[in-house]
Every structure is written in structure tokens, then in C-alpha cells.
């Protein structure tokens, strides 16, 4: 009862988070219909100040800031979502496999993940992107795989507690195969605690992609994306023009919104052990 009540009545912070997120997702889907100008259209002076014509002013080559932010929602949110989905797909599969398939494989996978996590993820990503170049495809694959190591750790630590329960033993005795046990017995029980983690990993990947784009190594022009927009307009700040702050605010609003929703989900079902919101 209590759980159903809190599901129906999210706290005000979670409601605000949902509204902001829905607006951004709406931007992303219907960008060409909403945006007053085109994505790469130069229509004004460089760094024109906000006016009725350009609500947030214009950018370094006279494109409308608001339109760029609306179009940028597509790339920025899309890439981060794709990375997180990929990372959860790999991380959960490997994590459950490590928990179900026995000690030897578990040891191999776990030590491998320890090794991969011994280098800071940004340094790792920079090395790989320097070799493959920053196409959208390599970007998603690289971040997805690098992030999956953290998902693996969480999925494994949750699954290990499920594997020792009676119903899994029954399934084993019934002669079910490895795949059946992973997908039909362990997965449904491991998913609920992973939902909040999905939000947190999304935030991390979202900031990570924005950071890479800011460094000029993430999403490449002519696509509008929020991190790259901060980079393009960075010099304006020295003249007191707030142009780079708008996309940065959009990035911050997104992560804060997701965090507020995650907080609400966490308050419904208690945090699993081994979960980490940091880094």
C-alpha cells in the first residue's frame, strides 16, 4: 500500500524533474517543428544579445541559440541514452553470466574488469577515440563498453545474492539451461534495483559525452550538441556575454532532473548493496 501511494504521489522535486525531462525529450523529438530557426542557419550577428527575435541571443557565427539548444537535445540526449542502454546490455549480461556460470568464469571476468577500471575512464576514452576518430558510432560503442564495467560490478553483486536462493536451485535441479536461469529466474529479480542505477549511469554518461564534446573529441559539427556549443562560444564569456552558459544550463538541468527522479525511486525501494552514485 505504502509503495503504491508513493508511486502515485511523487514528491514535488521528482515532479519538477519529470516536467523538465519531458520538455527536453519533447524538444528532441519535435525539434524541426518547435525551433524558430534551422540547426545550422546563420541569421544574425555574432553573439547578438537576447531579444524578441532571438530569445537567447545568437552564437559565434550568428546562429540562433534557442534553436541550437532545441536541436542539440537530440544529439546530446540521444547519444547518452544509447551509451547507457549499450552499457546496461553488456554489463547485465556479463554480470549475470559471472554470477550464474560458476567460479572460474566469475574470476576471469571480475579480474578483467578490475584491470579495465585501473585507468581513469576519461584517459581510456581519449586513447581509444584518438585511434578510431570521433564518429558517432565509435563514440557510443567506446563509452558504452567503458561504462559497462561499472554496471557489471553492480549487476554481479546483486545477482550473486539471487543465485543462492531456493528458486534458482530448483531451476537448476529441474535441469534448466544457463540462459534460462539468467533470463527467467535471475534477471526479473535483479532488474528493480538496477532501475535507479540506470538514471545515475545516464547522468554520468551524459556529463561524460558533454565533456568529450566540450574538448572537441565527442559529437562533431555540424550537429548541434550542448557540450560542443559551450566549446564554440567559450570565448564570449571573457566579454561578459553569457552565450556558453545557456547550453551548460541545459546540461545541468537535465542531470539535476534525473537525479531528483532517481532520489524518489531510491526512496521507494532501498538501495542495493554495492551500488555507487559516485564517478
Amino acid at each position, binding site marked *: 500500500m505504502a509503495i503504491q501511494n508513493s508511486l502515485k504521489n511523487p514528491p514535488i522535486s521528482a515532479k519538477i524533474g519529470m516536467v523538465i525531462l519531458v520538455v527536453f525529450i519533447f524538444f528532441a523529438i519535435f525539434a524541426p517543428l518547435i525551433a524558430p530557426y534551422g540547426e545550422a542557419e546563420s541569421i544574425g550577428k555574432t553573439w547578438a544579445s537576447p531579444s524578441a527575435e532571438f530569445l537567447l541571443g545568437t552564437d559565434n557565427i550568428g546562429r540562433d541559440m534557442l534553436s541550437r539548444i532545441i536541436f542539440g537535445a537530440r544529439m546530446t540526449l540521444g547519444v547518452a541514452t544509447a551509451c547507457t542502454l549499450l552499457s546496461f546490455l553488456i554489463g547485465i549480461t556479463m554480470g549475470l553470466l559471472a554470477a550464474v556460470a560458476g567460479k572460474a568464469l566469475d574470476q576471469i571476468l571480475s579480474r578483467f574488469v578490475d584491470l579495465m577500471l585501473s585507468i581513469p575512464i576519461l*584517459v581510456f576514452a*581519449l586513447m581509444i577515440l584518438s585511434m578510431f576518430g570521433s564518429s558517432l558510432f565509435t563514440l557510443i560503442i567506446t563509452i558504452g563498453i567503458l561504462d559497462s564495467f561499472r554496471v557489471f560490478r553492480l549487476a554481479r553483486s546483486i545477482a550473486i545474492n539471487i543465485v543462492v536462493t531456493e528458486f534458482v536451485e530448483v531451476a537448476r535441479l529441474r535441469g534448466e539451461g544457463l540462459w534460462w536461469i539468467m533470463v527467467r529466474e535471475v534477471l526479473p529479480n535483479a532488474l528493480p534495483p538496477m532501475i535507479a542505477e540506470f538514471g545515475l549511469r545516464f547522468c554520468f554518461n551524459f556529463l561524460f559525452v558533454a*565533456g568529450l564534446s566540450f574538448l572537441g573529441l565527442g559529437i562533431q559539427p555540424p550537429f548541434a550538441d550542448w557540450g560542443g556549443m559551450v566549446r564554440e562560444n567559450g570565448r564570449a564569456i571573457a566579454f561578459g556575454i553569457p552565450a556558453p552558459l545557456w547550453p551548460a544550463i541545459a*546540461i545541468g538541468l537535465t542531470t539535476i532532473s534525473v*537525479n531528483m527522479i532517481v532520489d524518489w525511486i531510491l526512496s521507494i525501494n532501498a538501495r542495493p548493496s554495492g551500488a555507487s552514485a559516485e564517478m
Partner: protein
Amino acid sequence: MLRLIMTRVFLGCVTLFAVTLLIFAATEILPGDVASAVLGQGATPETLAAFRIELGLDRPAYVRYLEWLTNALQGDLGIAMTNKREVLATITPRLYNTLFLAGYAAAIAVPIAIILGIIAAINEGKWIDRTANILTLGAISVPEFFIAYILILVFATNLGWFPSLSTVYGDMGFWQKIHVVALPALTLTMLVMAHMLRMTRASVLAIMSQPYIEMAFLKGLPRRRVILRHALPNAAAPIISVVALNLAYLIVGVVVIEVVFVYPGVGQYMVDGVSKRDLPVIQACALVFGGAFVLLNTIADILAILVNPRLRHPR
């Protein structure tokens, strides 16, 4: 205890070795071939082959790895492809700059974060705790360049207290340097402090749920005394590892900040190297960052052993 510490040091060395292997594997063995990556798509097969031989790519990978490793151990990090200068000569002053920035930020962030974290834990649920919670959550959620630009807008553009670009020279005086590097250091401080404050608060509160703390409360001791005398000594170990962990985070956070402020450190060198596909530079920078990361994590483990008597005897 000494044996335990030696084990940690040994494990650290093994990890460091693994890191070098990983760096080499990521940059040279993966299907993206260095020669074609550098020359681009316009290269003919003949120039590709010639360039491969020039780079020594025709030899087996393990030979190249051993050569690279032994050279690196002797301080020879190779020659940058773009400007033909020795990587070591470029990276040394930059490493000094990066360490200066990181040390500067840590000197401010560590004491403030720990004290505020403990104060927040003492006043759990009161306005000071809530304010700290909201502010730190905000600082964690926004990208680092956002904080940087806000600070530039306020302190450089509007108030004019600090320069917006942190250009440092070799013969700059210490206090002048402190002044020029103030904004990047402040940005880093806010980032790391937020993490550290939250984790310090969490580790103090985790100890607060122990039975002996309840006992102290039941004896009628004031909350302040229970926390400072009973909880804090036991929270020291987690707090120390929190600090070391965040210093490791600082090492990475430095990359973006250096680019924002055009600060001549290792992070900017690496980003430059990546955009120019300068392999020896990328490898050397990755080695520096990876090494610092492993070192700090090992130090964290060792300090945790030293601080916590229960960890001194392996079970």
C-alpha cells in the same frame, strides 16, 4: 602489518604493469592502425607501408611493447610526431604545472570538505545539512566547465579580480602564480569538495548507526561529544580513503579545467595529442595519469591499513 603493506605495494606495482600493458594494447594492437590513423584516408598503400616501417610497426607487438616499456622506464618517452620534440622535455614542466594546480585545489578542498562534512553529519536534517546537500548535489550535477564559466563571468569579467586565462611562465613568482591559477583551482576545489563532503558525511553517518554510538547517546552524552570522541576516530579510515579517492578524481578532472583556462598542464597536452593523433604524446600522458591514479589508490589502501588497527592483521 609490514607484510600487509608490502603486499599492497606489490599489488600496486602489478597494477601499474597491467596499466602499461593496457595503454600499449589500446593504442597499438587494436584494429585502428597507427599508420593509417596518422596519415588519414588519402594515403596510398606504398606510403602506408613506408610509414609503418619508419614507425617500426612491421615488428611483432610484444617486441615493440618491451622496447617502449624499457625506454619509458629509463625516462625516454619517445619523440612527438607533430613537432619532433622529446616528449619527456615537454611533459616535465607540464606535469609540474598540473601537480601545482591539483595540490593548490587539494590544499583548499580537503580541510574544508572534511570539516563541513562532519558539521553536516552533526546537524543531520537541520538547515545547514540540507543547504550543504542541495549545494553539493548541484555542484556534482553540473558539468565542470559550467562552474568554470560562472566563476570566470563573476570573478574575471565582472569583478576583475583574477585573469580568465591562466598562462604561467617558468620564472613566475610563487604568489603571482597563486593569483593567476586561482580560478582553475577554485573550480577544481568546488568539484572535488562536493564529492568529498557528501562521502565524509555519509561515512560519519554510517558509523552513527552502530550500537556503541547508541550506547553513548543513552549515557546522556551530548551529540557533539558523541560524534567528535566516539564516532570520528572510527570514521577516520573511510574518510581517508574518501580523500585519496577524490584526489584520484582530481587528477582526471584536471583535464577539462586545463582546457577551459588554457593552462599548460598534462591534461591539455593529452587533449592536443589526441586531436593531432600524436601517439607517443598520448601514451606518455596516459602513463602519467594512469600511474598517478594507481599510486593514489595504493596510498589510500595503505593509509586505511595504518589507521584501522583491525585491518593490520589479516584474517
